[in-house]
């Protein structure tokens, strides 16, 4: 028994480090030579469905045991929100954006239908991608002859901003996110996301993302499409850990507001697509 014990000790001591192409290994396993590599057949494309194939490189992960494994896509990219109808389909004061003449400031509009499931939490820094298609309608009054009929070009602008969630039942309770993780104002902001009714005073600022705008013109009060229109935007921003909700702000601009009277825009009156994706870089 004494002899056997000694034998094991010696073996462990001498094989503590293994060198391939070297007699002076610097690590437990040291594969030397300028072209040295290791092949793990358990990770190849034939044996492992998470291998992206011969034309690609696939990131390798370490599991809890320290084993080299594949299949950690969720650790790199995560779809946080993916919905086919984000904002409530209403045309009421909660979704209203009033027309302003000189394009000063935006107005907050729209309520998420499923705030409980569409708030999201980042546990670490992330490059957050937003892709949205937000619906709107645009008219003077909802009667049969209430369409815009002045042939004046109007600009429908929309942007997305984030709020921190401080109340799990109220998407508007928390402060708007103005800066990215580096403390830089988002997209050259702060942006005015809530201008007063007369379009003169900014009541709240935020960081608008994925700004998009299009023109609208109509010349017949009884004919012409005025609903089922969409603005589509896409953008990136770096955010720190926290719980957030995406919300929208809109702006309806025209050269001169005196000719036609009040014109109303409602955000989210149709179905709104929203995707929020985290690309983790830590």
């Amino acid at each position: 028994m004494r002899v056997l014990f000694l034998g094991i000790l010696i073996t462990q001591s001498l094989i503590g480090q293994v060198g391939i192409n070297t007699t002076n290994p610097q690590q437990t396993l040291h594969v030397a030579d300028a072209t040295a590599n290791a092949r793990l057949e358990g990770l190849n494309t034939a044996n492992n469905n998470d291998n992206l194939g011969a034309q690609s490189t696939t990131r390798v992960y370490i599991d809890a045991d320290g084993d080299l494994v594949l299949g950690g896509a969720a650790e790199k990219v995560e779809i946080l929100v993916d919905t086919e109808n984000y904002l409530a389909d209403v045309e009421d004061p909660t979704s209203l954006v009033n027309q302003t003449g000189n394009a000063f400031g935006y107005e907050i509009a729209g309520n998420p239908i499923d705030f409980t499931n569409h708030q999201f939490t980042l546990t670490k820094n992330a490059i957050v991608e937003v892709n949205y298609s937000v619906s709107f309608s645009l008219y003077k009054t909802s009667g049969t002859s209430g369409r815009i009929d002045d042939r004046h070009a109007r600009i429908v602008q929309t942007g997305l901003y984030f709020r921190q969630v401080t109340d799990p039942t109220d998407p508007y309770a928390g402060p708007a996110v103005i800066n990215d993780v580096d403390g830089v104002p988002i997209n050259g902001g702060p942006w005015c996301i809530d201008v007063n009714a007369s379009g003169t005073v900014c009541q709240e600022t935020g960081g608008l993302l994925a700004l998009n705008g299009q023109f609208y013109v109509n010349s017949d009060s009884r004919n012409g499409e005025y609903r089922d229109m969409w603005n589509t935007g896409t953008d990136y921003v770096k955010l720190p850990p926290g719980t957030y909700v995406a919300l929208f702000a809109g702006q309806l601009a025209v050269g001169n507001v005196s000719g036609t009277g009040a014109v109303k825009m409602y955000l989210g009156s149709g179905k709104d697509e929203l995707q929020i994706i985290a690309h983790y870089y830590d």
Partner: protein
Amino acid sequence: MKLITILIAIATLAICQFGVAQVGIGTTSPVEDLHLAGSNATIRIESLNSTNNSTYNDGVKLSPAYVDGNGDITIGNGTGVSGSEPFNFLIVVDNFIPDDPYLLGLRTGTVVNSNDLGESFKEGQITTVTFTTPVDAFVEVKYGVTMILVGNDLSLGCPCFYVDLDQAVTMLTYFKVDLNNDGLDATESTKAYGQKAQYYSTNNQGSAGYPYMNGQAIFTVPAGTHTLYFYGQVRDDAASYTSVGFGGAQDYLKIRVYN
């Protein structure tokens, strides 16, 4: 004592074996320096498991593996603490087109004119943006460019007039990629990325600006410095004057670089 000597000799022989060029485990014909055969074959590195490296391996989620400067397999938090850093970052270029390039005190952006003397199409370069990547990478570009439209040359200043009333004109933006920042060659010139177009028409009292033109595209670049060339196009009736300023208000440009 004799037995001990034999054991030492066996152990020494085993080490000599590890000096050979290629090592196979589960195979007698290795094709790499270290070749682990078998459909479940992998390597366990206990220094990186959740017990020994709980900072970066929580035992629940998989931890991305990298190699450091020595080629050692490692895990880290992405800030370079352990010599590892995933290549995945975002370049933000706010308002990447000058608002007032003609020094008029007007937010014109870069102007492209289609005159009323027979021109029905005009293209102009709006701006260029240069960026650098230290390694081969995928690049994704997302941009938003503002526009203003008038019926007289905006680069000369205002008074400004409407474009011909009730006539539709169209505007388009896109960009080209100059790899290695050595000028657009024939191939690079033919490839237009991130195209976006919309139309405009108005009567008196309409709005002239600024809606956003948004486009995005993904492409690959080698390590080095590269330049994006942004262009604007205007199409109108040959007898109409249309002057479009691209980038007069707050524009945005995001360049995501990763591999």
